[in-house]
C-alpha cells in the first residue's frame, strides 16, 4: 500500500446542485475501487479526498495486472491512464477498461461510452469485497466464540446470549417450518450463513462507511445462484416429477406445464430472489441519500435551517425503516431459499393416515406438501 490515508486535488467542486447529487448517488450505488471516507475543500479551494486505496487485480489481454487504485488519482472519467504489462487501463464510471492496441487516450461517443476501449475481468479487492471480507471475519469471530462457549457451559453468556436466540430463530422459524422436520438439519448451515451475511451487510450499508454490497447485482446473483444450485442438487424424485411430468393433469397439458415449471425453477425463482434483495437495498440507499440531499437542494426555498431540519427528520425516520428493511430482506431471502429447498425435498407420500371413520387425517407435512 502506498499510503494509508492520502489526499490529492481535483478540479470538481463540492456536491451541491441537483445534478451533482444525482450523480453522487448513482456513483455511490456502484462498487468502487478505493475506500473513500469523505471529501472536503480546503482554504485554497482545493478538493481533498480522505480514504485509502484498495488493490486492483485485473485479467487483461496481456495477463494479470495488479496495482493500487490510488494510481487512478480519483479519476473516474477515463483521463488518467495506468500502464501495466504493456496494457493501458482507465477507470470510467467505476469500471476499469483496457485501451485497444495503439490507442493512447480514450475517445468517447455521444453518450459518453468509450469507443476504443473494452472491459476487463476485474477481480479487484473493491469496497464490496472489503465489506464481504469484513462481514465474514465478524461472523467467524462472533459465532466461533459462541461455539466455543458451549464446550464449557450449556447456556452462553455475554454477547453469545444475543446470538443464540438469533440462531434459534433462523433454525426454528425459517429452516424447520419451511423445509420440514426430516431434512432441515442439512440445510440449516447454509441458511444461517446467508441470513447473517445479508443482514449484517444490509446494516453495514446504513453506516456512514456506505457499503452497498447487497445492492450489487453480482452479489445478490451469486447468493441466488447458490440457492438455485442447492435446491436443484437436493431435489428428489417427486420434485422432478412435478416439474417435468406433472401428475394428475391431462397429457397434453403436461409439456406446457413442464416448460412453465422449468422456467419457474431455473429462472423465475432465482431472479425473484436476486432482484428483490438488490432492488430493495438500492432503493433504500437512494431514498436515504436523496432525503439527506434535501439539505442542499431545498436550501433556497426553505432556508438553511428549514432544509436541514426537514432533511434530518425525514432521513431519520427513513433510516429507522431501513433498519427494519435490512432485517426483513435478510429474512425474506432466507425464508424463500428455505421454502424453495423445502419444495425440492418435500415428500408427497400417498399412504395417508386414516382415522376411525376412514377420512384422511391431514398432517402438517401433507398440508405443506399440497400448499407448495
Amino acid at each position, binding site marked *: 500500500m502506498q499510503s494509508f490515508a492520502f489526499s490529492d486535488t481535483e478540479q470538481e467542486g463540492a456536491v451541491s446542485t441537483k445534478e451533482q447529487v444525482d450523480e453522487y448517488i448513482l456513483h455511490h450505488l456502484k462498487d468502487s475501487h478505493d475506500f473513500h471516507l469523505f471529501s472536503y475543500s480546503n482554504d485554497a479551494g482545493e478538493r481533498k479526498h480522505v480514504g485509502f486505496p484498495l488493490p486492483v487485480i485485473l485479467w487483461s489481454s496481456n495477463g494479470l495486472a495488479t496495482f493500487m487504485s490510488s494510481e487512478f488519482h480519483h479519476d473516474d472519467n477515463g483521463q488518467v491512464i495506468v500502464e501495466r504489462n504493456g496494457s493501458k487501463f482507465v477507470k470510467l464510471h467505476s469500471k476499469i477498461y483496457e485501451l485497444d492496441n495503439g490507442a493512447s487516450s480514450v475517445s468517447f461517443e455521444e453518450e459518453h461510452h468509450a469507443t476504443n476501449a473494452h472491459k476487463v475481468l476485474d477481480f479487484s479487492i473493491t469496497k464490496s469485497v472489503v465489506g464481504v471480507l469484513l462481514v*465474514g471475519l465478524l461472523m467467524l469471530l462472533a459465532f466461533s466464540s459462541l461455539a466455543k462457549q458451549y464446550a464449557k457451559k450449556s447456556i452462553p453468556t455475554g454477547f453469545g446470549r444475543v446470538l443464540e436466540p438469533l440462531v434459534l430463530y433462523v433454525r426454528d422459524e425459517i429452516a424447520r417450518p419451511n423445509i420440514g422436520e426430516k431434512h432441515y438439519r442439512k440445510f440449516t448451515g447454509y441458511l444461517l450463513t446467508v441470513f447473517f451475511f445479508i443482514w449484517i451487510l444490509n446494516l453495514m450499508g446504513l453506516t456512514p462507511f456506505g457499503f452497498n454490497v447487497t445492492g450489487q447485482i453480482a452479489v445478490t446473483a451469486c447468493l441466488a445462484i447458490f440457492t438455485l444450485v442447492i435446491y436443484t442438487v437436493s431435489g428428489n424424485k417427486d420434485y422432478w416429477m412435478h416439474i417435468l411430468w406433472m401428475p394428475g393433469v391431462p397429457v397434453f397439458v403436461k409439456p406446457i406445464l413442464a416448460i412453465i415449471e422449468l422456467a419457474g425453477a431455473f429462472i423465475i425463482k432465482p431472479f425473484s430472489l436476486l432482484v428483490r434483495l438488490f432492488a430493495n437495498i438500492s432503493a433504500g440507499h437512494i431514498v436515504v441519500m436523496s432525503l439527506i440531499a434535501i439539505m442542499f437542494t431545498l436550501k433556497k426555498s426553505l432556508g438553511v435551517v428549514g432544509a436541514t431540519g426537514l432533511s434530518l427528520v425525514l432521513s431519520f425516520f427513513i433510516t429507522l425503516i431501513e433498519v427494519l428493511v435490512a432485517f426483513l430482506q435478510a429474512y425474506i431471502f432466507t425464508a424463500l431459499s428455505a421454502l424453495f429447498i423445502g419444495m425440492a425435498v418435500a415428500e408427497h407420500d400417498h399412504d395417508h393416515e386414516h382415522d376411525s371413520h376412514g377420512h384422511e387425517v391431514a398432517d402438517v407435512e401433507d398440508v405443506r406438501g399440497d400448499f407448495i
Partner: protein
Amino acid sequence: MEVLLNDFSPGLFVVQTILLLGLIFLMVKFAWKPILNSLNERESGIQEALAAAEKAKADMQNLQADNEKMLQEARSEREAMLKEAREIKEKMISDSKEQAKIEGDKMLKQAQAAIESEKKAAVADIKSQVAELSVAIAEKVIKEELSSNEKQLKLVDTMLSDIKLN
C-alpha cells in the same frame, strides 16, 4: 435492463462466489455445526431431564402408595393379632374357671365323704364309751346297793312291796 447488465461485474461475481463458498465452509465447520449440535444436545438433555423428573414423580407416588398399602396391612395385622390375643385370653379364663369349678366340686365331695365317715366313727365311739360307762355305773350302783345286809333286806322289802302293789 441494459444499465443492470452493465452494472453486473463478472469479476465481483467470481470473487463473491469464492468468498461465499469459503465462508459457508468455515461457518459450517467452526460455528454452525458445534452450535447446532450443542443446542440439540441441550434440548434433548432438557427433554430427558423433564422425562426423568416426571418419572421420579410417578415413582414417588408409587412409593407413597406402597407405603400406604404396607401401613394398611400392618394395621390390619395388628388388629387381627389383638383380636386373636383377646380370644385366647378369654378362652384361657373360661377354661381355667371350668377347671377350678370341677376341682372344687371334687374336693368338696371328698371333704363331705370324709366328714361323713368321721362322724360315723365318732358316733360309734361315743356309743361304745356310753355303753361301757353305763355298765361301770350300773356295776358301782349295784355294788353300793348290795354292800350291807340291811340294804339287801331293804331292797328285798321294796321289791316285795312293789309286788304287792301289783
